[in-house]
Structures are given as C-alpha cells and as structure tokens.
C-alpha cells in the first residue's frame, strides 16, 4: 500500500510540475516571441493539462493496456489503483492550471 500512495503522490507532483514548469518557461518563450506572456500562459496551462496527465501516468497506451488486463483478469483492486493514479494526475494538472490562473488573473 506504501507503493500505491507514493505513486499517487508522485503522479500528482509530476503533473503539477509539467503544468507549472511548462507554463512558466512557455511564458518566457512567448516573451521572446513578441506576445503577451501572462494571458498566453493561462491558455498554455490549460492546453498542457492533458499532456501533464499523460506524462504523469507514463503514457496513455500502457495505462490503458494495464487497465484492460486487470479488468478482464478480474483484478478490480488493480483497476481501482489505476483509476486513482489517473485521478491523482488529473488533480495535479488541474491544481497547476488553477495556480497559474490565480497568479495571473488574481481571481478564484
């Protein structure tokens, strides 16, 4: 169970890091590209959310494959774990997006 929690937390932080890092460095890129950096960063964070989840759970194909094998094999506990990882990654990515949005727009 220790492995489950550490993986869940890791997925959360990986997704969070992808969104935060991607948006902040992307903002610098926009600055060099003569575009308004802050408003573009919010869009970038939104677009990065899905890729952050994919990066956190280690590629969609593997996750779906594991999901299918466990489901067909009747190992519902493993299926629930996979779902928890995906959910954790989603929460991480969404937290990153919300942090960027709050930082830039200053509203909840």
């Amino acid at each position, binding site marked *: 169970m220790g492995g489950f929690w550490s993986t869940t937390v890791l997925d959360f932080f990986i997704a969070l890091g992808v969104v935060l890092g991607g948006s*902040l*460095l992307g*903002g*610098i890129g926009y600055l060099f590209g003569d575009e308004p950096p*802050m*408003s573009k960063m919010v869009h970038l964070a939104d677009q990065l959310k899905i890729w952050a989840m994919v990066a956190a759970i280690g590629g969609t194909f593997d996750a779906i494959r594991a999901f299918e094998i466990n489901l067909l094999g009747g190992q519902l506990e493993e299926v629930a774990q996979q779902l928890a990882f995906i959910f954790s990654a989603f929460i991480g990515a969404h937290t990153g997006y919300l942090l960027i949005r709050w930082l*830039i727009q200053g509203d909840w």
Partner: protein
Amino acid sequence: MRTDRLIRSRGLIRMAVSFFFGLIAGMVAMLLWTGQKLDGLYLERSALYYANNQKNKEILRLQQELDKDARRQESSEQIHKIQVEVISSLRYGQEEIKSQVETLVDPFIGKSVTWISNNPDLLETILRNRTIFLSDDNNRKTEIRLRLKYIAFIGSTLKIWVEALEAAETEKTAD
C-alpha cells in the same frame, strides 16, 4: 592529476548548469514581476494598432471621396457646348454665320471654364475683324466682318454674342 581535472571539470559543469538554472529562475521571476505590466502594454499596443488602422482606412476613404469630387468638379468645369448668337442686320445668312463662327470657336470645347473666363482676350483675338464670306444662290459672295460682343458661361455652356457686319457697312461705320 586526471582525477583533479575531472573533479574540476565536473565542478565547472555544475557551476554552468547552476548558472543556467539561475538564469531561468531569474527570467521566471522577472516575468512574474513585470508580466502584468507587459500584458497591459501589449493590450495598449494592439488597441493603438487597431485605432491606427481605422484612421488609415478613414483617410483612404476620404482621399477617394476627395479624388472623386475633384474629378466631378473638373468635368463640370469644362466647356461642353458653345452656343453662338449672331447680332446682325442681315436678314438672311445668319445660320451660316453661326455655323462658321461655331467652327472657329470649336477648339474651345473641352477647355476649362476658369481658363477662358480669366483670358477672354483669346476669344476676342480669334474673332476680332475676322472676315467670312457668305455665298448666295447666284454664287455671289458677301464679305462679313465679325466682332465679339459678349460672352457668358451658363454651367458648362459658353454662350457668345457675335456682331456680324457687311464689309461695306463696316467701312461706313469706320468713316
């Protein structure tokens, strides 16, 4: 010796990477510090671009309207028709005099009204003491002397009054 160099080079690499990370951290900090102001300036710039484009479009439209008006004015200020009135005591031949005078002043068609009204001498010079001949059915020629009496502009029509006198009559008048 080699180990020392390796350690030193590793240290250098670490320093370079740390410097690079510091650079990125600095850039991010600066971005967060000045980002809002930059966004505001970008917004202002795009608003100014838009306003400038609108002004340019308006200027172009006004320019086109001015050109159109100028062209219209130019065409309305040209002489399109010359109407000749003959002042003469002659009973017959007035139509022929009119037609001959019309031929004489024909080059003025298409010329500017302003130009002719500023230089009426031109018309007078053409018609002053101009002699034309009228021929009757018996092939007898009558000598007619012309003199410009008045000119008037009615829109794009130039109206001229020409006095036509028989040569003999003219001599009498001269005496």
